[in-house]
């Protein structure tokens, strides 16, 4: 595991990060001094027992939670020091999130869910249409574009979730148990898609998972235990 703190372009450097949670009157330490680097274009699976802080780490890297100490850098951006509004803007441009339970907008169709993050860009309606068209083809859902999430299978919904994450062409994809709610066949499809996105589009992917098969899709696996990483190479 690379414990250096140099900041490669669009790589992620986590430097002496501390994170505590308060549960009732008790403070629970998740990370006391976490340091690691993830290079641009890497595909990392983070595994570990429940409560080991996998999702917390993902939230910290994605800027939807803040560390209590230390720094998190993405390229030259020190995201742990950004203001709330700057962080929101940064997230919209640089990070795509894929959730275990898809978290699609239930009242929007597949294509509208994909287009949603594009409303934050300066793309014209036509450019947005073209982008959505391309992504729908990429995830193989062109014929399901008008369907609401409730009309799609779990695998299809997750593909819409991935498509939405890709819409604004982020450099980083953060996937929180992306196969956790899928059957084996759908899970394989989703993992294959992530591998393609990493290999062919150069997306940096960090995936939290309990699933060994999913973990094996990554280039490397980081096992999180007691707030520290124990790395083992992917099979």
């Amino acid at each position, binding site marked *: 595991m690379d414990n250096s703190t140099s900041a490669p372009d669009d790589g992620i450097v986590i430097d002496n990060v501390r994170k505590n949670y308060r549960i009732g009157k008790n403070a629970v330490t998740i990370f006391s001094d976490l340091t690691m680097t993830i290079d641009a274009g890497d595909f990392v699976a983070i595994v570990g027992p429940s409560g080991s802080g996998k999702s917390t780490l993902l939230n910290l890297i994605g800027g939807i*939670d803040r560390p209590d100490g230390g720094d998190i850098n993405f390229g030259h951006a020190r995201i742990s020091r950004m203001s709330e509004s700057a962080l929101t803007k940064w997230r919209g441009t640089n990070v795509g999130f894929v*959730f275990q339970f898809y978290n699609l907008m239930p009242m*929007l169709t597949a294509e*509208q869910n994909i287009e*949603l*993050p594009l409303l934050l860009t300066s793309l014209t309606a036509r450019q947005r249409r073209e982008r959505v068209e391309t992504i729908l083809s990429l995830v193989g859902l062109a014929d399901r574009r008008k369907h609401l999430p409730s009309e799609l299978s779990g695998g299809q919904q997750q593909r819409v979730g991935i498509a939405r994450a890709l819409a604004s062409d982020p450099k980083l994809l953060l996937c929180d148990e992306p196969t956790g709610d899928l059957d084996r066949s759908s899970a394989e499809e989703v993992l294959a898609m992530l591998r393609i996105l990493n290999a062919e589009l150069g997306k940096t992917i960090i995936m939290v998972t309990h699933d060994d098969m999913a973990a094996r899709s990554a280039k490397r696996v980081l096992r999180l235990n007691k707030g520290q990483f124990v790395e083992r190479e992917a099979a």
Partner: protein
Amino acid sequence: MSTMNRFTLLRRTMARKPTRSVLLITSIAIAFFIYLVLTSFEHGFLGGQVDSERLIVTNKVGDALPLPISYYDKILALPDIAVATYMARSRATYRTPTNFLGLTAVEPLSFATFIGDQYDIPTDALARFGEVRNGAIVGRSIASQEGWALGQTITLNTSNFVKTDGSSDFEFTIVGILDGRQSADTHFVMARYDYINTERGTDRDTVTGFGILPKRNVRTDDVIDSVDTLFANSAYETRTRTEAEFMKAFIAQFADIATIVRLVVGVAFITILMIVANTMFFAIRERTKEIGVLKVLGFSRLFVLGNVLAETFALFAAGLGLALGLALAAIPFLREPLRTVVPDLTLTPAIIVEATALAALLALVTGVAPAFNAMRVPPNAALRER
């Protein structure tokens, strides 16, 4: 392929639970319908055409109590008076005991001058009014309602004028029909004071009031003081007010319409305020996870705040629109049956502007708390919501 915009999210959110949205819009519409009709009622009841320059002199003890007609010459003799007239008012009924109208016994020429900027009285009608002792000039509204025509003889039963034989029935010959300018009330009959006064057995040589037009560039308050001071410490002290004040006090004898309207409207609005605020609060709680997703996707706190506020504004706008449509449809139907009570039942642009401002205020009040909650919820906490 269709594209979306920021309103798509709002529209789709509102359409997501159509029953809830329809019920909310309906409750808002009902409250605003009540507001629009009652405010039009209040406005019409108070009369749109009262004048703050015209002064009315009544008995200080009560508006319905008499004043001696001998005061007329004394008032006329005051230096700042341009026009003075006298009148004896009574409620009257025609044919049936519930068919009410106003009857005012007047001195024709001075009264015509006094109300000249409010009503068009044909010159020939005024001339015949002076010639025919039991002549009457009738308002267009009552004439149309009863189908009266020039030369027709009508009998009115009066409340305040009692003849020497105990009868309250007075016979009049219609000599003219007057029209009101703009929305002035024309649901009344003008008779000659000398006719009524000669016939009646009680309260003879008394009036229920005097009308005064002060000279130009004279302060109204000075005229009021001079009249009331003139009759101070007499057996019949006077109270002089502008016509606007007089009308408000006159109406308040029957009911404090303004207070009733405010109470009813207030209760209606407090009710919808609670319903909408409560519903919005729960609607936003239901969508906490989606709000978290929006924030994760990069939508700003202000966007989230604006989106929730826009939802309440849209609900109120739809409710107000529906209420306006209903009120515009209903008021013409209410106008004729209520004409004797409310001479000018009209939904004026001013009332619509007031209602719009009120709707915006209520939307803000009901939307601001859920919108702030949505804005403030951290995305990671929102995503944990079930």
